[in-house]
């Protein structure tokens, strides 16, 4: 039971982290129709900026400044690069973000080297929140969750109850109509792209201190957040939240899955015959768990491309 509780908490905390990154990605897709390959890179840059700033100043300053810097980078990319590529069509916008992903990874390697850097959480936050049957639960996991929830509440209030939020929500669904009504849609695009990048940066700054900060983190997380936004429904913030939690909790529990596909035959007495067949049937599910999110994404794409909560197909 305690294992379940700890796994659940870990899953929720990781899921909320995924949400922090994917929220911006899904908003940007909904509005511009561009799946931003470089979004995971913003997360990575957030972690590295946080590392540098906390080395020369402190963690709290990093937490405030790094996301802003990432938001500025995002704004620059949208204003001076994406808009130019947009003239050549949607595919070229996608390709541009794809190129940026490569370049960011190489730049990080150039400045920080190939190996993970020592980005640690501050000592004031390194304590045990509570203990369950001998497992000390680190407070920092809760801290990640709290930051994510605070961000979600802020975004929700902003989108739901302000005039700017109203225009953004409208622009996500009908950009041309909103522009026809006289709103400055390019400015809204710029703001949302910067905001999304900043959120991913914030997630990186917070999570980089807990998880390893390395040049591969953009690729690893980038794939998972694609799954999250597709499963949740491209363009849907609520969907992204649900899908993030789903995938976070699944990943957390999958580590403990100790049975194989062949074991499914046990009730029928077929398990020995099935494991005799070998191949993928005898592989432990915990080692196959990394493929499951992609299977889920595939199923959603084929059966319900609008995702769990998306309205656009």
């Amino acid at each position, binding site marked *: 039971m305690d294992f379940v509780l700890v796994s659940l908490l870990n899953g929720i905390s990781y899921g909320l982290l995924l949400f922090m990154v994917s929220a911006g990605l899904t908003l940007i897709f909904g509005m511009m129709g561009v799946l931003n390959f470089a979004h995971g890179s913003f997360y990575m840059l957030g972690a590295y900026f946080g590392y540098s700033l906390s080395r020369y100043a402190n963690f709290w300053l990093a937490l405030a400044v790094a996301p802003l810097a990432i938001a500025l980078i995002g704004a620059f990319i949208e204003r001076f690069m994406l808009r130019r590529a947009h003239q050549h069509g949607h595919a070229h916008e996608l390709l541009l973000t794809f190129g940026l992903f*490569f370049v960011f990874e190489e730049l990080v390697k150039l400045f920080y080297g190939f190996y993970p850097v020592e980005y640690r959480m501050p000592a004031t936050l390194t304590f045990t929140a509570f203990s369950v049957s001998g497992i000390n639960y680190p407070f920092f996991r809760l801290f990640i969750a709290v930051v994510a929830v605070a961000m979600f509440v802020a975004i929700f209030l902003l989108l739901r109850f302000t005039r700017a939020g109203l225009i953004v929500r409208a622009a996500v669904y009908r950009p041309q109509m909103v522009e026809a009504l006289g709103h400055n849609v390019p400015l809204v695009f710029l703001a949302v792209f910067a905001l999304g990048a900043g959120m991913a940066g914030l997630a990186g700054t917070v999570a980089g201190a807990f998880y390893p900060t390395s040049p591969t983190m953009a690729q690893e997380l980038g794939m998972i957040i694609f799954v999250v936004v597709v499963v949740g429904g491209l363009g849907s913030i609520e969907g992204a939240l649900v899908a993030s939690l789903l995938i976070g909790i699944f990943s957390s529990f999958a580590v403990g899955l100790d049975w194989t596909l062949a074991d499914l035959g046990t009730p029928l007495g077929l398990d020995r015959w099935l494991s005799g067949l070998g191949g993928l049937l005898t592989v432990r599910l915990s080692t196959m768990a990394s493929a499951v999110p992609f299977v889920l994404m595939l199923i959603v794409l*084929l059966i319900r491309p609008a995702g769990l909560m998306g309205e656009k197909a």
Partner: protein
Amino acid sequence: MSTAMASSTRIRAPTIHWSLVVLLLTVLALVTLPTFLPHRAIATATQMQIAALFALAFNILWRQTRLLSFGHAAFFGIGMFATVHIMRTAAGGTVFLPLPLLPIFGLMAGLVLGVIVGFFATARTGTYFAMITLAFAEIIHQLSPQWQGAFGGESGLSAMRIAWAGLSFGSDKEVYYLVLAWSLAAIAGIHYFTLTPLGRLAFALGDNEQRVRFLGYNARLAKTLVFIVSAMFTGLAGGLLAIANENVDHTIFRASLSGQVVVHTFIGGAGTFLGPIVGAAAMTMFGSLAADLTRLWVLYQGLLFIVMVMYLPQGIVGLATDRAAHWRWRELGSLLPSLLAVLAGIILLVAGIVFIAEFLAALTTNPFARRTDSGAVSVALFGATWDRAALTTWLLPVCSVAGGLILTRLGARRLSHAASAGVQQTAHG
């Protein structure tokens, strides 16, 4: 004007098919190349051909049907694994399997996987299509290291080239010719495919799918077939690499390989037939040359890709054919200054950026940085020593980049004016 046209139709000069001449010369050059090249260069040339075929096969989908696949590493990898398995069987000696025919098994493996993935992926278009191909490739990438028998686990599989008909296939040269023969045949096959009814229909699908459907064609089936053709030739390219490398492991399915073929194709020019070939061959060659000189090659390639996507979306080959069609050769004299300005600008830009990047790389990886007695940190680069704190060290590359930008912009503006003027003249003349 009209009399000139009339006379030109009456007296027909014997026309030379320049493209045919160029083609023949290229093939001749490729055949004679290994006699001039050192060993390592032959191996690189083999890799270039395989990369070119891979990119060309990938671009069947994009150029014709406008479907962007982000999972082509799956077909390439499966072709490699299938061929390695067959090579191992051939080594047993019980079955008659001549080595030159083995890439056909890579092709068949690509075909089978292409049927499966193509059937599902063509259910969607645009981003959703890309995501499905990406998901399939990633599932295979995640599962393959677990499946010991089929993919050899973490360590992969290896095989040996078995001699056949007096050919040992032990030297790079023999492998080169084997790969060359297959590549040329495949390139010819892909070109022929673009001329078949299905190939023409594929172009129509890319232009306007709705209209194709309205004409009564089964668009989904056509797209699936084009997908299968693309996957098939990709598998063949994988089979050729399996023969050249004699081993393969699960990292061949990595997403960055799927990305690499996209980068190659779009740098070369995705809208043209030759673009992917030129892009992949050039990038593979530069990558091999640069590997000895710099560890920043991937960064440079990424920057080049971004510049191409933003400023030259038609790619290298697309740009060349565009300009060749619009410029008039007798105006070349007046355009020469602008052309030279662009060229000089690009050289300055590249020099400045490369200097900054290499300098930073040298500073961040300590062994190359030297601390002198006075405490200054200096780096030896391009035959000189540069002090980190000196103003000139930074001013020089920054000026170079700035100067390069100005020159390129001015030159490019004049060139595009000339190009549009040329178009107008042709239109009115």
